[in-house]
């Protein structure tokens, strides 16, 4: 019953968005709350029932449930055909279809669940902001797009959601559109995302061209059907293109730059879109395309390397940032890198598991930071905080839980997922990726450090607040703290879903996902024989000892990070010095300015002649092309225009005096002279004309009657 009406899930928030769009301005806040939050709550409940029903439907086989409403693009009757690679025609056919399998059910649950909590939180957080209905309308629209994305059964439909979430992200980052920085950030996010989107749509179309369908099920069947060799060039290209899309949406190097700036939006937005849900769309898409990626080892390697690099790179920047939300933003980028690392080494389930746990504790961190900001009346700089532990206890406790989770302390959620990733990285391909393990391990250390830095600066160290701010500090309303508490519980418990074998658990989560990332894919190996592909297959059962060692090591890393943070910041009074700035000023500068990547991009793509404050005498690529356009191309155009103008001047003179003067006006003057007597007959009385008409009527009548 619920399963058959799965299409309703996105429609609930869409309904809320439509109401807000048309009537929002006139509604009371209570009504807005009822409509928007209600829509998401309904969607969540519906989603829960749907997933429960799905588990009955699948009986643990993971058989996907597909519901196709109608053909949305193209049709089966020969319109919109295209030629496939092998010369046969296939029709371009995208359904408005919905797919529910274990992968999308996980996303469905946490997107609606976290989304619901954040909606509730927002009613408190946004209570005093203008554009209340607009905010909720956008949020609902986002929920609609996100749900469309994860429930889509083909790439085109997914792309609709993909673009939809991009649009909503743009709208919500630019929510305070009167602030210049916000609108710039929104534009930045939008533009950078477009680069990724181009990659994505090209990849999807390539797949369609190659495999003849957009449907995931079709593509999976084909890719696992043993028709393609591992490392098939077209599939590799398609996978890489898709990965570019994922880079854009999930903020991976080199397209990660928009995410930190996206923190200009309201904090619930950062939590919902830029931490928990939207940015994991890239992970979702890669996981969804696992059958293709498995066939393209090069692409897999790229994913893994990019992921690892992003993780360490972003974490390094996060070490020294002072804006509380920015730290979290870089942390998000870094964690996303982890997820891609997992995907890249073939540990899809581990990556997805990390997405799942990350959604809870990162949303919690953002919402907690929002609560802190709320308490500080808008102050975001950690240098001006401190000693908030007692003033806002609920926020403190929940954030502490989240920090423990993200740092990977046992038994919090992050420990399980992160450890799983690291272990898989260590173990995969017989250790080919161990270098990446070291990178990941370093990242884990840094993660613990910067997160505890945040905690100490915000909650524990002596107060550095100004007096007014100190005066106003207050705990947030119930509507904000209750979601925090719920998320905190989730942050603790979410990890237990996949208690690893090595610790005596049964890894339910992986079992649940197993059908999606089917390992028994049949592929064509080079010798022309069919063989079982064991992508990401691990011999986990045999290396328990190593696994325990690694677990211990990562716990140690977390502990070390904690200790370092405590050592450096536990007593940070007013005007404290960053230890890195003291020890290695150039490094600090480099990190503080985010490795000058933004400036570099500015230089290369937008044509400023300086990197940061450093003036370079040379033009960047953007400026160079601009110069080329302005001088060479436009110059040519202008020259042609000048010639035309000159000819036109001559032509005008000729037209005016010779053609008009002699040829046109001459006869006109003549006609006027001749017509003068005739004009006397018309004296401008309307009825005279009527009389003429009557005369004409008479003439006709006489002709016909006496013919």
């Amino acid at each position, binding site marked *: 019953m619920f399963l058959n009406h799965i299409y309703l899930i996105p429609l609930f928030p869409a309904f809320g968005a439509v109401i807000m769009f048309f009537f929002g301005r006139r509604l009371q806040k209570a009504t807005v709350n009822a409509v928007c939050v209600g829509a998401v709550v309904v969607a969540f409940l519906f989603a829960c029932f749907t997933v429960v029903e799905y588990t009955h439907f699948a009986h643990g086989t993971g058989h996907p449930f597909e519901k196709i409403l109608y053909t949305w693009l193209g049709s089966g009757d020969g319109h919109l055909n295209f030629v496939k690679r092998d010369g046969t025609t296939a029709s371009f056919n995208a359904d408005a279809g919905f797919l529910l399998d274990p992968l999308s059910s996980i996303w469905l649950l946490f997107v609606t669940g976290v989304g619901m909590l954040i909606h509730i939180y927002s009613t408190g957080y946004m209570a005093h902001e203008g554009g209340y209905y607009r905010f909720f309308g956008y949020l609902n629209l986002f929920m609609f797009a996100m749900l469309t994305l994860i429930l889509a059964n083909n790439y085109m439909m997914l792309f609709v959601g993909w673009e939809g979430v991009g649009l909503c992200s743009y709208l919500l980052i630019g929510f305070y559109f009167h602030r210049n920085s916000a609108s710039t950030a929104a534009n930045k996010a939008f533009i950078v995302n477009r680069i990724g989107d181009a990659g994505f749509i090209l990849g999807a179309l390539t797949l369609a061209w190659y495999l003849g369908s957009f449907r995931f099920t079709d593509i999976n069947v084909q890719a696992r059907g043993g028709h393609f060799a591992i490392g098939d060039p077209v599939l590799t290209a398609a996978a890489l293109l898709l990965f570019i899309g994922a880079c854009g949406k999930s903020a991976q190097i080199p397209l990660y730059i928009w995410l930190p700036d996206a923190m200009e939006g309201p904090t619930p937005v950062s939590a919902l879109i830029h931490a928990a849900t939207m940015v994991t769309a890239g992970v979702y898409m890669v996981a969804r395309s696992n059958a293709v990626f498995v066939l393209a080892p090069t692409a897999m390697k790229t994913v893994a390397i990019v992921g690892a690099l992003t993780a360490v790179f972003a974490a390094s920047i996060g070490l020294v940032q002072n804006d509380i939300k920015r730290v979290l933003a870089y942390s998000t980028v870094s964690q996303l890198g982890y997820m891609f690392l997992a995907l890249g080494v073939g540990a899809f389930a581990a990556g997805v598991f990390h997405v799942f746990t990350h959604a809870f504790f990162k949303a919690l961190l953002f919402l907690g930071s929002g609560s802190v900001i709320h308490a500080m009346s808008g102050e975001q700089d950690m240098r001006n905080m401190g000693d908030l532990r007692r003033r806002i206890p609920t926020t403190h406790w929940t954030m502490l839980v989240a920090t423990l989770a993200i740092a990977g302390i046992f038994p919090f959620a992050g420990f399980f997922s992160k450890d799983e990733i690291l272990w898989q990285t260590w173990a995969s391909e017989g250790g080919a990726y161990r270098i990446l393990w070291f990178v990941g391990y370093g990242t884990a250390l840094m993660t613990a450090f910067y997160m505890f830095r945040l905690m100490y600066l915000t909650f524990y160290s002596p107060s550095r607040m100004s007096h007014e701010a100190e005066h106003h500090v207050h705990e947030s309303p119930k509507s904000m703290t209750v979601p925090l508490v719920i998320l905190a519980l989730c942050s603790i418990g979410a990890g237990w879903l996949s208690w690893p074998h090595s610790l005596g658990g049964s890894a339910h989560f992986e079992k649940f996902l197993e059908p999606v990332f089917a390992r028994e894919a049949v592929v064509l190996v080079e010798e022309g024989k069919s063989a079982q592909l064991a992508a990401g297959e691990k011999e986990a059962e045999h290396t328990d000892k190593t696994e325990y060692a690694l677990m211990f090591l990562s716990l140690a890393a977390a502990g070390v990070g904690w200790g370092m943070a405590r050592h450096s910041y536990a007593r940070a009074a007013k005007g404290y010095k960053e230890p890195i700035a003291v020890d290695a000023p150039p490094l600090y500068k480099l990190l503080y300015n985010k490795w000058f990547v933004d400036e570099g991009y500015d230089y290369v793509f937008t044509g400023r002649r300086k990197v940061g404050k450093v003036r370079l005498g040379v033009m960047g690529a953007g400026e160079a092309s601009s110069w080329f356009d302005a001088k060479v191309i436009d110059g040519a155009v202008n020259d042609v225009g000048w010639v035309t103008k000159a000819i036109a001047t001559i032509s005008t003179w000729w037209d005016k005096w010779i053609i008009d003067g002699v040829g046109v006006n001459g006869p006109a003057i003549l006609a006027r002279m001749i017509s003068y007597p005739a004009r006397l007959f018309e004296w401008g009385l309307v009825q005279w004309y009527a*009389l003429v008409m009557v005369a004409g009527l008479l003439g006709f009548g006489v002709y016909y009657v006496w013919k």
Partner: protein
Amino acid sequence: MNPALNSALSINSGMAPVATPWFFYALAGMAVLSGVFVITRRNAVHAALALIITLLSVAGLYLMLYAPFVAGVQIIVYAGGIMVLFLFVIMLVNIERSSKERAFNRMWPVGLAAAGALMVLFASAIVKGSHINDMFRDRLMPLPESTNTQQIASLLYGEAGRMGQYTFAFEIASLLLLVAILGAVIMTKKKI
């Protein structure tokens, strides 16, 4: 027509029209007489009232011709709508001056002569035509009155599943009305 008609109460036979020639002459006379008033009254309101009588008389003639729907439209549109508009405008532009001025223009003899010629033409056409066999048939074809509206509707809109003969023209007519409304509003509105 209900077949269960009790014959004892019907003085005329069932289908016979209530209309007698007297009705026709009364209505026609009223229409023409009021028409004369329309063009001769100095006061525009009087002319308008006379025109209303003409229109109602013509509506009566329609009823005699078994065209009740046209008669209804005539009343609701002409008498109820257009004439109210006329009266409205007369009141808006009512100026004392007009009652003291010449009612007819300078070329009225010419106009009258032309109209007279028109009348002669019509008369001769009717006289000539009535001699031609079957040009103006004397016997009138029966038109069912009780389903008149339904039949007009099926001509205009078509029956189930089929477009009517005049559907398109009808839509165009509605467009014309829309344009006329917009034009009138824009022309008369003081501040748009």
